[in-house]
Every structure is written in structure tokens, then in C-alpha cells.
């Protein structure tokens, strides 16, 4: 059977040491100010008046019905058979339509490459038989990665052993493949996925995706007007202005 990869985050074992975040930064050379993964620390007062802290390591949830793929006009965002939601850099134009499409805020434009960056479940490492960089370094062994279709895998065993939940709401339920264990504690609203205003599912996409599909790569640029290209032009203008200043 084809593998299906999932990530488990045992929040009870997480200590917010940021090892996962820095390990990812080093492995994938993400620029300062951006990260493919994170640990959210949520503080609140419990019903009994006592303070509480919960920790949520997060990243792309590699959803079954990934809206980012739907939003991507160029076909750069795609889902592999094993469940990994990936991004083809050679095709990605950096239009950023997928960014607000993600209710988990897992995508961002890498200013170094002008393409979209996101967690890949460390696909290049996994393909070589290694664990994702965040999993390998995780101090509390709070992150567990593996093939859910293999009944003998650690993730299958753990999923059967404990009560795991996914970050879904009535509004956003798109089949994430990232599981959380909280020992029965309710998940705070702060870490739940949210639809973004700029992402009006379906509507914008129809207009963009269709012509792109028809016109092909060369014509895609036209379809991007109002999104990424404007920004690029804007940048070129900035450079132009700058050079003009230099000329003076």
C-alpha cells in the first residue's frame, strides 16, 4: 500500500525549546523573520481560576483537501500520493494566492527565492529514509512522524493508544494530517485554523485558474495581474527609482 505520512505532536511532551524551529531553519536555510514551523505558547486562566500554559508545535498540516492547491494558479502546489503537500519551485511564480488560502498560516513568500516556502514534511529527507529535521532533534520527543498506512509504525501504534485530535473547526475542516495530543484538554481558539478575508474560497480561483490552465505557462503572467506580478512590477519600480536617485 502507498504510504500516507502524518505528524503527531504530543503537546504534553513539548517544552517550547524551539529546537524544531531552529533545526528547520538550518536544514532549509529559511531567511530571518520567516519560519516553516513554530511553537505557539498559549496562556489562559482555567475555570478554577488557575493559570495554564499549553504548547502547540505547528507547521503545514498537509491537508487532504488542501485549499492552497486549489488556490495555486500555476500548479506549483501539489499533493503527492503519500499525502505530502509540496511546492514546485520551478513553476511557482510567487503570486502568493496560496498564502491567505491556508487557514493555518503555513505558507509565505521567500524573499530570497521569490517562491512560496512551507513545511514539506522534509520530503527530501524522508525520501532518503531520514526523519524530518524537527522530529530528529525534538528534545521531548514530542514530534512523531510516520506512515499511518503501516500498522506497525510508531504513529499507528500511538494513534491507537491515545486520544488524538486535529485542529479543525465547523468552518475549517479540510482533512489535516497533523494530530495533537493534549491529554484531554480543550484546544484553545488561538491555535485553531481561521479563514482569511482575502481568501474567498472558489470565487477568485475560478477566474484565475481557468485561463492559466488554457493559456499555459507563457500566458500565466497575464492571469496574475492583480496578484504577484503587480508586486514584482512594484519592486522593479522601486529599483528603478532607486537607480534614478543614484544617477543624481
Amino acid at each position: 500500500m502507498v504510504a500516507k505520512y502524518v505528524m503527531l505532536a504530543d503537546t504534553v511532551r513539548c517544552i517550547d525549546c524551539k529546537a524544531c524551529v531552529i533545526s528547520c531553519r538550518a536544514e532549509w536555510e529559511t531567511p530571518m523573520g520567516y519560519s516553516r514551523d513554530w511553537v505557539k505558547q498559549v496562556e489562559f486562566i482555567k475555570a478554577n481560576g488557575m493559570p495554564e500554559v499549553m504548547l502547540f508545535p505547528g507547521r503545514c498540516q498537509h491537508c487532504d483537501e488542501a485549499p492552497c492547491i486549489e488556490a495555486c494558479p500555476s500548479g506549483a502546489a501539489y499533493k503527492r500520493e503519500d499525502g505530502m503537500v509540496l511546492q514546485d519551485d520551478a513553476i511557482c511564480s510567487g503570486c502568493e494566492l496560496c498564502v491567505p488560502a491556508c487557514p493555518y498560516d503555513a505558507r509565505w513568500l521567500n524573499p530570497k527565492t521569490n517562491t512560496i516556502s512551507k513545511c514539506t514534511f522534509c520530503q527530501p529527507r524522508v525520501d532518503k529514509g531520514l526523519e524530518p529535521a524537527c522530529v530528529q532533534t525534538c528534545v521531548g520527543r514530542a514530534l512523531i512522524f510516520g506512515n499511518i498506512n503501516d500498522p506497525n509504525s510508531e504513529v499507528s501504534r500511538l494513534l491507537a493508544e491515545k486520544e488524538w485530535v486535529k485542529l479543525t473547526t465547523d468552518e475549517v475542516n479540510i482533512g489535516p494530517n497533523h494530530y495533537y495530543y493534549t491529554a484531554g484538554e480543550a484546544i484553545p481558539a488561538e491555535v485553531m485554523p481561521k479563514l482569511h478575508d482575502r481568501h474567498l474560497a472558489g470565487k477568485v480561483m475560478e477566474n484565475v485558474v481557468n485561463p492559466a490552465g488554457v493559456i499555459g505557462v507563457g500566458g500565466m503572467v497575464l492571469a496574475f495581474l492583480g496578484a504577484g506580478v503587480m508586486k514584482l512590477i512594484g519592486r522593479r519600480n522601486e529599483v528603478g527609482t532607486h537607480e534614478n536617485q543614484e544617477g543624481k
Partner: protein
Amino acid sequence: MSTPNQFDPSRRAFLGATMGGTALSIAGLPSQALARINAPHEHEKLKETTEVFGFCDMCYWRCGLKIRSRDGRAVKIDGNPEHPNNWGVVCGKGNAGLMVAYAPNRLKYPMKRVGKRGGGEWKQISWDEALNEVAENLNKVKKEHGSQALALIGHGSWEKPYHRLAHAFGTPNTTSPVFGLCCGPRGLANMMVVGRNLTGNETIDLENCKYFLMMGRNVTESLHNGETLGWVNGVANGAKVVYFDPRYSITASKADEYYALRPLTDHAFLLAMINVVINEELYDKQFVAEQTLGFDELKERVKQYTPEWAAPITDVRADDIRRLAREMAAKAPSVFVYAPRRMTRSSNDLGTGLSITILNTLFGVWGRKGGVFTPQKYNVPEPDLPEFKHAHIAHRVKTGGDFDFSAMDIPSEHIVDEHGKYQRADGAGVMGRWPIANAQYGLTNEMWRAMAEQKPYPIRALITAGGNGFLNSTNYDIIRKALETIDFYVAADVIPNEMNAYADILLPEASYLERYDDLQIGGAREGYVAVRMPAIKPMHDTRDAWTICKQLADRMDLGAYFPHESIKELLDDRLKKAGSSLAEIEKVGILKTARDDKINFPRDHGNPLKIKTPGGKTKAEFVPSMLKNMGYDKALDYVEQVRPKDDEFHMTFGRVGYHTHARTQDNIWTADFMRENVLWIHPEPATKRGIKEGELVTVTDQKGRSGEIKAKVTARIRKDTIFMVHGFGHWDKRMTTAYGQGVADSDLASYEVEPHVGSMSMGLSLVKVEKA
């Protein structure tokens, strides 16, 4: 004429908040360079790398590492799965170690001070000039004042050769802050009671422990990978966690029960626990009968400390104390009373340490599964060296001057040097001063005082190897005066800081990714020896500690103490004596003995625990005879601690998982998570003062020291206590990321001296907080 791009010298401060420099550099690209932007890039490929082994220098736990390099550059730090200190995991700090090597602010060349000391004017000199100058100055001090006029303060995983050099030079005055500023009192307490030490790499059987009574041991934030992972595993295996801390830390959030203990009153709580354990006969009767002394005296002495007595002092209810004692006894010996990592807080840290050790001893945890295991050692002999000049150092030849906290460092053996003239200037191990302080590590705080006051005899020269005297101790006036008083100061370090800014000569150390170092020899369930190999060539004109010390030794006629031509030759020589070789260990990174339950848990196998206390007893001493002889057994008794008045707070500080001491605030990767520290204050006192979340407040101690810091208004702290993360408030502008961020807790913490040990009591400060 070209106009500069949007230069902003402080732009580093904006990184993280915005895309900062990146945006600027793209906007500033000449048009030709734009072609790069959409070119295919290599980011999503796993590139070929070579791997070398090492051990970490980001904190003092020293995890085993595998460092991946490509194209002459270290690109990723992974854990060595075979290393017992971390079993393959590496924390955020460890991962960020790359940025120690790549930091633009590193010390890059040997420098000589020009102008006034501490004035910050330097010139680059060659290594030859630098080493000659150091040798000349040290020899001059020796000639004019004697070798004892040199002090060495070391603070790093590479400080060992400097200790050896100083010992060869002939001074007794070598010190490391770990004793006087950190773990001393608890290590000493362990030693006095059971003759062994639980500091350094703790030997707790965490996975199998069933009950953790944690006295502010914030094991998730003051984290050491192997220890933290072991603890998390223990908790997952069903251990109960009862956590005491005035602050609701992340560790508190993992606990089954949390008590916001009144600051500094741990001793009172522990005495009451001992009282219950004894009165209700909850202790390990066989162990107490067969392997301990002084039980009856202890019983008599703790009689007064009932739970009812402790409750109003500690804010822990009497019935809770009773229940906890019973619960623990039910799980003993798979229980552990967990001391805080740094235990230099109250005016009776020795008493707190003793009561923790006594409680663990009553529960019979020593040498038992789920309690404390007996570590193994991997025997790697030191090279043959001449005798060291001071008698009290001579017996250290075995460790080459390396630290061995568990060495039977009996003070009475080394309180007099061979001339009978010079004892340690800090008074550690000296009769009439601090006789029970560990003379191997010394009292760094008292060494600074000796330099500042030139008492009991002149100290005219100082070597520092790493460390930051300002931010790790708490009396800035003393440090400053010491640095201004001495004749000659040479500092070896990787980064610039407030202390080494005063150096006459700065020796740039290679970072731990660029060098060999002497072997790491440790004791865990398995004994091990591990190697540190260079992952990259030194980026700048830097050298490693051993090479520097050897080259200095050669210039001071002390070459016989560094008999090898190179550090590699030293490692090979030592390893060959241990039946291996450098070539062999470089393939695997670590050599280990096999685990052996019979050694680790002797008492589970019907064997008694091997005990030898400093008092010369072969049984554990509830009332240590050595302390009794010196009158220090009074530390067993509770001493009233300071209490804040209505408008005052206890000043507390501690760690966060991604910063180490005062060393990582300028690391751009760790600073990305926390650039400045904030002052934790409870909503009630905050409201009373009109302080809102994020607002700037002024915090002032009773000595008039003060600082401005942003407030974090949170119910996660007691109403009478404030807290801030340690290590911030750097004022050295060379630390371009850390400069001016937050407040230095060390400039607010107290600097009274613990009256038995001589270590620092940093938790006695009471502060006021107002809107700035």
C-alpha cells in the same frame, strides 16, 4: 556619485519584526542581479555533506553532536544518537550553535589594548606578539609578587588547558563559577551526607522514577537535553510530578500538583517533610539501619519542624505536606527530591541542600532503580606530567586539573600549600575562612573580591577563559574594581563581552565547531569518552585553548606540562593508553562501556552502596561529622528569610529554554525568539500600580540599583514576587543584537554571602516596581 543604500547601523534590531535587511537588499539590487531571483535554487534538495563528531558548547551539559558540513562550511548540527547526554536530540540553543561560528561580532584576531583599560581601544597584533606579551607579563608578576599573584577564572567546555597552565605556573587561585555562583551548595550537601555529588551531569534514573518532588527544578526551561528527555519519558511512564516554584513555569504546566511556594522557604517545607517521614516511619528502614549514621540526632533536630510550623512560612498546607510525604514513601525508592539547578539563593542554601539530600537518603534512593544510579567511568589516563607546584593541586594530576566535582576533595588536605605560605585567596578550603567550599572550583565571587581588595594578599594578574564576570555575578562594583586594580589581564574567548572589554590582551578562541579539544570523559549509566573534532577550518585568526596554553607554557619554561606537539597528538596518546586511538574514536565520536545494572543499581542486587564521606565515614551521615566539627551543622536548622513589605517584591530570575546564561543573547537565531527580557508581575499588584501589559516599568532594589523593563502582567506568578529571564540587559555595544535589550537581573539580584559555604545568595533582593 553613488549615494549609499538605506543604511541603518541598527538594522539588525528590525530583523524578525519585518523582513528587514532582506527587503532592503532586494530593493537595492542593481538590475542585473534581479536575474537571480527566479532562478532555480537548491533549497529543496538534501545536499551531500560530510560529518564529524563533537560535543556542544552552548551550555555545560555537553551533548554529543554530529556536525554536517558542505563546501567548507558547517550547515547543520545534529545530535549523536549514541551519546548518553542527549541520545540524538539537540535543543534550540544547540541547533543555533552554527551562529556562534558565523557571528560577525566574534573576536577574530589577537588584540592588544591601547589607551585606558576598558576604554575599548585596541590594535591587532600577531599571535607571536600576543603570546610573548602574556608570557612576559605573567613572568613579571611571578618575579615581583610570586606565582600566587595570578588568578584564573574559567567558564567554558574548553577551559581545562588554562587550569593546567595556571597550576603549572604555580598558583592555587584557579576558579570556575559553577561552585560559588551556581551548584555549589547542593553539590556540597550531597558530598557531606553521602560522599557523592549530584551536579554536572546528574545521575538520576529519570525514566524509571515514579515520583518527582521538584524544588524549583525547572527542567523544561533550564534544560539539558538528556536530563529533560529522561524526565519527559519518566512523566510519560507515569511518574507523578509535584512542582514548587513561585512562578508557574512550563515545568509547572506539566506537573500533577503545583505549589506557589513562598520564595526562599524551600528549607522549611523540606524540614517538615523530613519530620513527617521520620515521625510516621515512612523511611527506608533497612537502608537507614544498615548504611546511615545520626538518625536519632536528626529525629531530635527536626522534631520542632512540624507541617503546622511550616505551613504559614511556606504557604503549603500542613495536610498537603503530610500527604506528599506519604505518597512519596509509597513509591520509594523510585522517587526523587529534585534540587534546583542553581542553588545560590537563600541565606541558608547549605541547609536546603542538606535537607534535600537527607530526604532522598531517607527514601533510600541511592543505587536503586528509579532513584539515583551509580555511574560508570571510562578510564582514560592523563598524560605523564611533572608534579604540580602546589601540594593541594598535586593530587589532581590524575585529572590534569580538569574538574571532577566528585573527587574526594577533602579540604583539610589542601588548606596549606607546600611552602605553608599561600592559601587560596578566595578562602575556599581555607580554615577560618570558607573551609568547606570546594577548593578545586573555588569561590569565584570571593576571588573577585580578593582582586578588588587585594586581600588577603595581592593578586596582580588575571586570566579569564570564557565567562562574563559582570552578568554572572551580582556585584558589579567589585568586578569593576578588580579589573581596574590588577596589573595585567588576559582574556581568551570567542565573543566580546562586558568583562573581556577590560583585557590588556585578547586571545581569540576558535569556536567549538572549528577545533579539537581535550576529551570529554563522563559518567552515565555507561562510562564514556567523546571527541570534539573540527567541522570547519578556523574562519579567522583564532586558535584552540590547548594550543594557546601550550604555546604560552613553552614561553614560560612550563612546556613539560604540555608535552605533546599538537592537540591531536595529546588525544591520540591518551586514547592509546585507554586501548583506542584518535583515528578510531573519530569514526564513532564516542566510546562507551556497556550498561551494567549491577554497577548502576547495586542495592537492587543485594550489594550495599559504597559510601565514603568527607568526614571519613563509610555510611551516610544525616548530621555530617565534618560539618559538626566546624560548627556548620547549624545549617540544618531553619533560618528566617527576608520577606517583602507591602510595596516590595521578591526578585527572582531564571532561564528560558532557548537562551544560556548571558551568552546567547547576541546569537541572532536564539535572539529571534526572545530579544529582550520582561518583568513578570501578577495582575493584582500591577493594577494597583496602574501597570498594563507591555508597559515600561522601573524596578529598583534596596541598594538603589534599578533598571527599566517592559511588564508582562500574568497570573503565572505570586503576588509578592517578580521574575525576569536571566542574561539580558547587555551594555556592550559590540553585541549588536543583545545591546540594550531588557534588564540585567544580575544587577538587581543580591550579593550577600552564604554564611557556611561562601557562595552567593542571589535571591535575597527585595525590589519595588513602578510605572516608568
